[in-house]
């Protein structure tokens, strides 16, 4: 069904405007990543300048940002994978079997309402005792503390809308709850799983305080590395920009990987009436 022309134009206008608000600062970041600091701060801005790759060279060779990318990547993806698997199972049990009673979802969420600042010191002391500081494994576990509850919650909201009849039918047909879960429920909530994956990955990828406290030189993640570019003697704004641009790449890849789920829609689960 096609709407009137003015609706179309208006829609594109709004979306275009929103995109511009996002894109313009980003283009500015991109430009800053190719200039030295004299030009970065110069006003009126110089439109014609000789681009330099110095910023990229600095962060990649002198500062080993490649290593920090890898750390971020390993930590965020492992933690997300664990959270989504464990979380989907919990969401299923909570919604279908009322596991943990009616208070369970609230309890899970309530744990997230603490400012991390207070948790981080006990965390450090506990991790220090069991030797998990300065390791990627430690950070992966730590991140479960806050991405798992969100994942459970988000998936619960999607689970509620997967009709019960679907998995009940499967059970009657002789599936065990586990196979019903894997074959019927999971495909039916793929958009939710996509959204949960992104949510969890973004939370881990951008997390700063725990990464700062629980990692060391070899294990630190990107946000911590970026923050090191701010010093008492000046902020290396070009290097920050270059790091920002590079840090977006893996995230963009992830987005394209889960995009299919996001747009899959419920029809994938063959729901009729």
């Amino acid at each position: 069904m096609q709407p009137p022309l003015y609706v179309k134009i208006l829609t594109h206008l709004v979306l275009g405007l929103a995109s511009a608000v996002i894109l313009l600062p980003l283009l500015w970041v991109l430009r800053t990543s190719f200039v030295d600091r004299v030009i970065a701060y110069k006003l009126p801005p110089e439109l014609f300048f000789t681009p330099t790759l110095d910023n990229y060279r600095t962060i990649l060779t002198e500062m080993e940002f490649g290593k920090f990318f890898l750390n971020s990547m390993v930590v965020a993806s492992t933690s997300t994978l664990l959270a989504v698997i464990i979380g989907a199972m919990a969401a299923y049990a909570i919604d279908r079997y009322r596991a943990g009673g009616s208070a369970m979802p609230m309890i899970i969420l309530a744990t997230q309402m603490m400012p991390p600042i207070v948790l981080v010191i006990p965390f450090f002391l506990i991790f220090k005792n069991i030797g998990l500081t300065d390791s990627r494994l430690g950070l992966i576990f730590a991140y479960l503390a806050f991405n798992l509850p969100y994942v459970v919650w988000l998936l619960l909201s999607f689970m509620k809308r997967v009709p019960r009849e679907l998995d009940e039918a499967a059970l009657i047909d002789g599936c065990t709850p586990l196979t019903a879960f894997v074959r019927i429920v999971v495909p039916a909530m793929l958009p939710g799983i996509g959204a949960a994956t992104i949510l969890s990955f973004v939370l881990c990828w951008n997390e700063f305080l725990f990464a700062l406290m629980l990692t060391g030189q070899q294990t630190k993640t990107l946000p911590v590395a970026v923050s090191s570019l701010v010093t008492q003697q000046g902020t290396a704004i070009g290097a920050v920009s270059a790091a920002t641009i590079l840090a977006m790449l893996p995230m963009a890849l992830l987005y394209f990987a889960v995009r299919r789920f996001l747009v899959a829609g419920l029809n994938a689960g063959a729901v009729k009436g």
Partner: protein
Amino acid sequence: MSRFYKASLLATVACVLGATSAFANPAEVCKDVTLNMLLETVPDTVALQKVAPEFEALSGAKVNIEAVNYSLMHEKLVPSLTASSGAYDVLVVDSYWVGEFVTAKWIQPLDERIAKDGVDTSVYFPALMDINGKIKGTTYMLPFWQYAMGLLYRKDIVEAPEFQAAYKTEFGRDWRLPETLEEYAELAKWAGKFTGKAGAAMSGQRADPVVMEATNYVFSLGADFYNREDWVPTLNSPEGIKAVTVYADLINNAAQPGALGANFDDVANALKQDKAVFAITYLFLMPTLQDPKESLVVDKIGFARMPGEDSLLGAWGWAVPSNASNPDCSWEFIKWVESKDIALKRGIAGGQPTQTWIYENADFIKAWPAMAAVGDALAHAKGLPVMSRATQLVEVFAEVMGDVLANGTDPATAITNAEDKLAALTRGDPLLK
């Protein structure tokens, strides 16, 4: 066990060598040890990273330097220092953390080691030893960096004939660098109007930036936060109130726009981009102001000591944490890094040396001519009071300044309101007894 073994080995070695050599062999205590240390991402750290392999070759230890943003260092250090075995083996301690670290017993006294190895602490500027060395008669640190502050100014502008002529008409005297805070304030306001730039680049952002800058005003007028004998708060004096008043006046009438949200980086950038004439800030900005990739004012910046009585002195010191896994090797590293040869190398690479003789070294002065003025600045500088809760003093003074600058509270009232908090900070402090 192994620490005991190594310690006794060290003792044996020292005995055998006796008077012939005061230095133990680093290889004896450092073999296969990893020394973790946390430093700030500044040029001096880069310089250190460059020379660190020399120590590794000498001692067999592995030096693992973790470099982070300044304000994150304290956050990372505190949990590590409270743990039974720490993450770091060598610490660098900012001058206003000193009291806290000593009171909490996080760093080890070094006197025995200094005496045994015959380390000469008289090579350091006495002002630095006072804030980042000896605390209540016990030596805990060797000074690492000095963060002297003073007046950075545009040489090319103030030396121009038309500027000096206009100056004479305005003030009725020949051009001179300001000698008092009041004179500086009048000059900065006028120079701003005359040049169309900001008279002063200022950093009014909360906590560190505003406090480190405004404390210069306080010390310049001879005021202080406490009477350093009986630890009664003294900021509520005519001089203290005046210092805050002058600072607020300059923020409103001479500073670059938005100075209230500016930090040190913004001050440096205002200078670099030719937007300001004066700034009272850190001398360590010199190397970046001299970098043509960053700065439009290369060779145009001069440095003079803070007008008036004193400026604020900041510094860093090397220390061995109490929970270091291998304190003997940590000490070997500190001894090595502060040895003459290495200290000079780090200075030439853009560091901020703490040993007096380096400032007379021809190679060093050739590399950093402006640093020749450091001696004068250090002679008229004092640190924040060495007290267990100096970090909190910074926060409280920042609240006072914020109250005056953002809410327009009258300085005398703002200071009076903070008196209880200031008094509470010294209560029960073992360092002040």
